[in-house]
C-alpha cells in the first residue's frame, strides 16, 4: 500500500515535469515564430483587440474596486493601531505602491486569466476536437505560428497596457474612497503619491503583467491543443486553463517577489 502511494506520487511528479516540458517546447515554438509577427500582423491585431480592448470593462471594474479596497484596508489598519495622524502623509504613497507592484498586476491578471485563458483554450480546443488543427497542418500552416504566436504576443503586448489603465482606475477608486469616507483632500492623497512615487514600482508591475499575460495565453494554447472528448472536453479545457494559469500567476508573483 505504501508502495502504491509512493508510485502514485512518483507518477504525479513525473507527470507534472512532463507537462512543464511540453509547455516549454510550445514556448520555444512560439518564440521561433515571433519574427513572423509582421507578416501575420492582422492575426496579432485581431487578438490584441479581443484580449485588450474587449477586457476594458472588466478591468475598469476590477481596478476601481481594487483601489477602493486597498485604500479601505490601509486606512482601517492605521486607524486600528492609532497611527492615522502619523501615517496620513504616507497613506497615498503606500496605497499606490501596493497597487502598482502587487494588487493591480496580480488581480487584473487573475481576472484576465479567467476571461482570456478560458476563451483561448475553448477556441483552440474546439478546433482540435473538430480536426481544424489537423486541417491547418494539412494546409502546411504551423498551428503554433497561426494560432499560438498571435495570442501569446497579443497578450504580452496588451497586458501591460491593461495594467497601466488598471493602475489609473485603481488610484482613482482609492482617491474617491479616501475623500468620501475619510475626508482626505486631493493634496493629502496625491501629494503623498507624488512624494513617494517610484518609477521602479510601475516597472515591476509592467514586467509582471508581461510575464503573466504571456503565461496565461501560452497555457490556454497548450491546453487547447491537447483537448479531447468533444464538447465536454472543451468545457473541461476552459476550466483547466483558468485553474492552471491562476496557479502559475501566483507562483510567478512569488518568484518575482523573491527576485525583484
Amino acid at each position, binding site marked *: 500500500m505504501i508502495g502504491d502511494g509512493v508510485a502514485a506520487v512518483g507518477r504525479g511528479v513525473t507527470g507534472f515535469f512532463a507537462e512543464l516540458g511540453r509547455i516549454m517546447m510550445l514556448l520555444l515554438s512560439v518564440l521561433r515564430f515571433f519574427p513572423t509577427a509582421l507578416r501575420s500582423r492582422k492575426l496579432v491585431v485581431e487578438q490584441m483587440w479581443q484580449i485588450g480592448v474587449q477586457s476594458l470593462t472588466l478591468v475598469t471594474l476590477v481596478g476601481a474596486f481594487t483601489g477602493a479596497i486597498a485604500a479601505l484596508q490601509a486606512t482601517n489598519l492605521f486607524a486600528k493601531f492609532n497611527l492615522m495622524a502619523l501615517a496620513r502623509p504616507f497613506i497615498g504613497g503606500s496605497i499606490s505602491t501596493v497597487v502598482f507592484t502587487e494588487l493591480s498586476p496580480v488581480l487584473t491578471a487573475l481576472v484576465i486569466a479567467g476571461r482570456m485563458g478560458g476563451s483561448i483554450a475553448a477556441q483552440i480546443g*474546439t*478546433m482540435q476536437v*473538430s*480536426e*481544424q488543427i*489537423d*486541417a491547418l*497542418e*494539412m*494546409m*502546411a*500552416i*504551423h498551428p503554433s505560428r*497561426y494560432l499560438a504566436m498571435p495570442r501569446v504576443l497579443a497578450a504580452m503586448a496588451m497586458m501591460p497596457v491593461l495594467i497601466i489603465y488598471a493602475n489609473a482606475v485603481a488610484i482613482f477608486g482609492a482617491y474617491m474612497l479616501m475623500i468620501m469616507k475619510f475626508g482626505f483632500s486631493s493634496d493629502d492623497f496625491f501629494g503623498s503619491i507624488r512624494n513617494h512615487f517610484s518609477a521602479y514600482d510601475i516597472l515591476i508591475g509592467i514586467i509582471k503583467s508581461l510575464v503573466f499575460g504571456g503565461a496565461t495565453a501560452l497555457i490556454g494554447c497548450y491546453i487547447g491543443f491537447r483537448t479531447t472528448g468533444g464538447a465536454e472536453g472543451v468545457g473541461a479545457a476552459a476550466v483547466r486553463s483558468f485553474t492552471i494559469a491562476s496557479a502559475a500567476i501566483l507562483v510567478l508573483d512569488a518568484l518575482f517577489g523573491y527576485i525583484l
Partner: protein
Amino acid sequence: MIIIDNLQKSFGSRQVLRGVSFEIETGATTVIIGRSGTGKSVLLKLMVGLLKPDAGSVTIDGRRIAELSTDELFEMRRTIGYVFQGAALFDSMSVADNLILGMWEHGDRDVPKLEQEVRRNLSNVGLLPDPSSVSTAVFEEAYHQLSSKMPSELSGGMRKRVGVARALMGTPRYVFYDEPTTGLDPVTSEQIDNLVCDLTQKLDVTSVVITHDIFSVYKVADKVVMLDEGAIQFIGTPQELQRSSDPVVQEFIERYAMTHAARDVHTND
C-alpha cells in the same frame, strides 16, 4: 506512388494497426474499407504524418515521411489535399476564406487570382454552375452568395463539397478522402462518389478514399484494400472483392447488402 511498409500503431494497450503493407499507384483511386474501428482513419493520418507510427514506414514519391524535417513535411503536404470526415471547415471563416487560407498564408496575395481559383474549384465540386453554361452575371451572383456563407449556414453535403474544394486548392497531386459519404443521404452520397471519380479523371490526381460504404467501392475504386482487426484482409480490384471467398470479406459485403435491404423493407412499409 505511395508505399506503406509494415505500419504498426497502438494507442495505449490497444493495437490499431498490426503491420500493414501495400502500395498506392499513381493516377488511380485506391479505396480502403473495413468495419468501424479497424484503423482506416488512423492509417490515413499516418500516411500524411499527422500521426507517428510505432513501427514501419510511409514513402511518398521516394521520400520517407519519418525522415523529413518539419519544414520538408509541410512542403510535401502542399502536394496533398485532405478531405476530413466532418469537412473540418474553419467555422470562423466564410467559404471563400476557407479556400483561400492555405495559399494566402504561403505568401500568395494576388486576390483576383485567388478568387478565380476559388471559383474554379467551387465549380469543380458542383457548388457553382459551369461558367460556360450560364451568363457571367448569373455565375457571379451565385459565387457571391456562396462565397460569403459561413460553414454553419451550409448543409452537410455542401460542407463536404466545400471541404473537397478546399483540398483541391493549389492543384494537389494526391487527394485523401476520409469517409466522404458518412452521414449523408444516399442521393448526396452518390453525388460525392461521382465527384471523386470526375476529379480523379479531370485533374489527374491520385485518390485515396477511406469508406465503409461498399457501393462507393464499386463506383470509385481501381484498387481495394480491406482492413480487419488492424491487418490487411484483402487487396485487389472491386471485381475480385466481389468474387472473394474470404469469409470476412463475404460477411462485410453481405452485412452491408442486408442493411440496405432492411432499409428498403422499412421504406416499403
